[in-house]
């Protein structure tokens, strides 16, 4: 059984965040007290300031920052919004109350801080992420839950009302939703030796039924398409804290390939955040080359699929290895295959034949 090796507990994380928020608040307070207009420096998130960091193996923001000042009448409103959000985030974190993007939008109305629409408030949330270089989950703003986890993993809750309570994640066959309580829980121990992230709920259920967790000593995670940040955080923690390798199984198309890439090295959208990536994660299929090899039934690629291929070819992360090769093959065959395509050869074909072969191969990646 692997035991958790503490790095930074969720509690410390919260404390750390509250400190940063307080520091910003104090700076603004001091400025006002001195009759100065307060300002906050925000990393520039425009495309020109997003660069690929080869060492970190992810996109990061460059050194450009924009100064948001309360003196500038066109920035005053968004400055106020940002200070309000910092204040609100502080409250959420201290009270351990989770909320969603939509909650934040409506909460603002109680404080006479007006957002024109949710996209405006969403934008301010990303601004605060960039200022803090912390994902919003850290200040208790969570996405809708659509991602789940199953396997022999024991966690200990930290959320109010459940503190100290433990739970093993193999007792309910439908899996457990990856929500705020899961993300903030301590990872206690596990017998698993591997994490399998899978793109689709249907296959997730099949894997549980076929006891992939036991057969391959694995924790199974359903990413529900593009993995939400809380899921990516959990994947990272499983990798870093529990020292588990992560493999990813997606549909055999260009979008699937990119789902794997985002887990591995993040997205340009989240270039202002670190600690969301699992650089060692491995994409084990379904590859373009698998389509021929396993004689999978296919459907033709659409025009937007093809365009997406060309777009990704410009991405620095797709310049080598299987990433580059598979993209080329997709473009050559111009066909794609879903995970369900294996059902042509029997419902368990994917777990009986495909999975063992690919897992073996993944070791050499």
């Amino acid at each position: 059984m692997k035991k958790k090796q503490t790095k930074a507990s969720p509690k410390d994380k919260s404390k750390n965040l509250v400190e940063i928020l307080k520091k910003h608040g104090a700076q603004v307070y001091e400025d006002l007290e001195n009759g100065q207009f307060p300002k906050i420096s925000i990393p520039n998130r425009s495309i020109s300031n997003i660069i690929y960091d080869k060492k970190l193996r992810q996109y990061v923001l460059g050194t450009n920052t924009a100064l948001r000042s309360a003196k500038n009448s066109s920035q005053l409103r968004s400055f106020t919004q940002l200070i309000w959000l910092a204040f609100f985030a502080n409250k959420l974190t201290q009270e351990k109350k989770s909320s969603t993007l939509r909650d934040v939008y409506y909460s603002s109305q109680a404080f006479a801080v007006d957002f024109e629409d949710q996209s405006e408030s969403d934008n301010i949330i990303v601004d605060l992420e960039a200022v803090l270089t912390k994902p919003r989950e850290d200040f208790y703003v969570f996405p809708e839950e659509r991602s789940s986890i199953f396997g022999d993993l024991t966690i200990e809750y930290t959320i109010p009302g459940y503190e100290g309570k433990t739970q093993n994640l193999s007792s309910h066959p439908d899996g457990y939703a990856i929500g705020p309580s899961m993300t903030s829980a301590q990872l206690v121990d596990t017998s698993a030796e591997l994490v399998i992230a899978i793109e689709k709920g249907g296959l997730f259920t099949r894997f549980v039924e076929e006891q992939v967790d036991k057969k391959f000593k694995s924790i199974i995670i359903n990413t529900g398409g593009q993995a939400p940040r809380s899921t990516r955080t959990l994947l990272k923690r499983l990798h870093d804290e529990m020292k588990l390798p992560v493999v990813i199984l997606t549909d055999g198309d260009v979008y699937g390939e990119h789902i794997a890439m985002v887990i591995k090295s993040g997205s340009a959208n989240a270039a202002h955040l670190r600690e969301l990536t699992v650089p060692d994660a491995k994409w084990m299929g379904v590859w373009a080359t698998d389509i021929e090899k396993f004689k999978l039934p296919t459907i033709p690629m659409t025009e937007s699929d093809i365009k997406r291929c060309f777009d990704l070819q410009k991405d620095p992360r797709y310049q080598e290895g299987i990433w580059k090769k598979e993209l080329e093959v997709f473009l050559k065959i111009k066909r794609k295959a879903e995970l369900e395509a294996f059902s042509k050869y029997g419902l368990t074909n994917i777990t009986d034949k495909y999975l063992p072969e690919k897992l073996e191969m993944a070791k050499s990646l």
Partner: protein
Amino acid sequence: MSSKEQFNQISPSEFFYRNRDLAGFSNPTRSLYTAVREFVENSLDACDHSGTYPNIHMIIKAVDPDKPDPKQYILTVKDNGPGIPSKHVPLAFGTVLYGSKFGLKQARGMFGLGATMAILYGQITTNRPVKVKSNADGKLRHDFEMLLDIQKNKPVILKNEEKASSEKGLSVSICLEGDYAKAGTKIRDYVYQTSLITPYATITFDDPKGEKFNHKAIIRTMPPAPTIIAPHPYGIDVETIRRMLVDTHYQIPNVDNKMIEKIRKELGMSKKKFSYNEIMKKTVKKWKSLTRPVRVVIALMSFLEADFEKLQRIRIEDVDLRNNKLIYWDYSTSETLAADMDTESVYYKQLANTVQGESLTQFLTKRFQRVGPTSAVEFCKFAKFKPETRVGNMSDQDLVKLSDALQTYEGFRSPDPTCLAPLGESPLARGIERRFEPDFMAVVQRTASAYSGFPFVIEMGIAYGGNIESRGTKVYRFANRIPLLYDEGSDVVLKVVNDTDWNRYKVKNDSAPLIIVSHICSTRVPYKTVGKENVADRPEIEKELRLALQFLSRKLSGYMSKKGQAEMAKKRANLYSKYLPLIAQFCTELAEKKNEPNYKQMLEKENTIEEKTN
């Protein structure tokens, strides 16, 4: 194909009766509006030309108010102008193409056509006569009731009365089919806008619903009346030149008793009988003081060797310069005779000149504006005519050549604008000021320019804010002091306004309370249609409009940036007082302080800055 096609000549009345929609009488709505325009404009023109401050009273009354539109209305327009002498009334109102407006000067109407059209329209829709009351001398008023005989283009007088009255002026009343429910807005707009461009006129309007609109004169200065002038060389065609030549041709004077009296008087030989030789002797002495007709007759006498008695017995038939013969008819012998002409004689030259007409340079300097002796000679060089060419000798080809050269020669000075009557900057400004009480206003009158021979002047005003209720750029278009209300979209003024990038002048185009008043004055406004509602985009006119608008826009821009700075400061202060308290509240909690920071001093400081900018 029928071979029995008939070719009938139709009278002008009949022509217009058949084509009445050309003149704006296409339906009851448009017709009522057009009729109003024609009468009001005639009244204003009459007052302008006689130098009277116009006082115009218009009444529209439904014959049967309870009927639904379209229905019969009685339209009456009364003015305080010079009236029309009673002998001209039947022809002026009872025939088409009779008028006093055929000269070259600026007037609202062109040919006095429209009023008669309105009468014609009233008559065909209601079969009722037009009532005209005219008082031209301030003593006697002549009341007429008459109908138009369309086929004969002649008035039929039903009633003609005279009444003693001291009020000068003209009142015209017609009954016509109209639709006030639909035309009302346009008519009220028309009256309103007319008062805007004619601020020295009082215009009152009683509408059929019992409402009274009273637009009082707001200034007591009238622009100088336009004068009739000779045409400019540009824009003259061959036919016009031909007509001018006929006018200028010296005719051999009629030799009657009156003429002989005149010759006797000028020679100082009144009573006695004189012989031929005595007359010639006297002539040599007096030649320099003789008038041209007398010289011509004496020249004839010299070749005929005639005394006064013989002169009375003959009639000149032809002066044949080719064969040097003078052909005449002798009453005493009843035969055609010929006398030789001595080409060396001074009298020959006199006669030849008379028959051949003026020299080209003389013709140009006398009959056209802006052509002096020097430019006439220069022009002849350009057109490859000899300056002393006699216009009477010019062939048709020569005339075409002349007309073409007149169009292409660039040396003539631009047309004389004295025939134009722009409103003037100050009356225009005061008109706008009184009607809109704007926050900002500027007016400009451009110097006169010309398009194909017709002089024109652009006047323009711009106003912002105040009592202007419209939003976006509203354009009031005028031409020769007529408001143009229909067909806005295709007008050259609109084109110029729409081409303007208002952002450059710090104006938010779609929400600004901005009006533009544009006035084009010309002896001939290039309307696109007979309905006189939109001006065609001649490049010369477009250019002048553009320059005027640019000049005004720059002034507006200056005002807007001042106003913008003040507004910005105020807006900023408002923003600060809204948001700074919030920032203070949130950062106090974030920093875990007890009291809010002292930010009020900052608000006060911002407010003083704002006052300074104001």
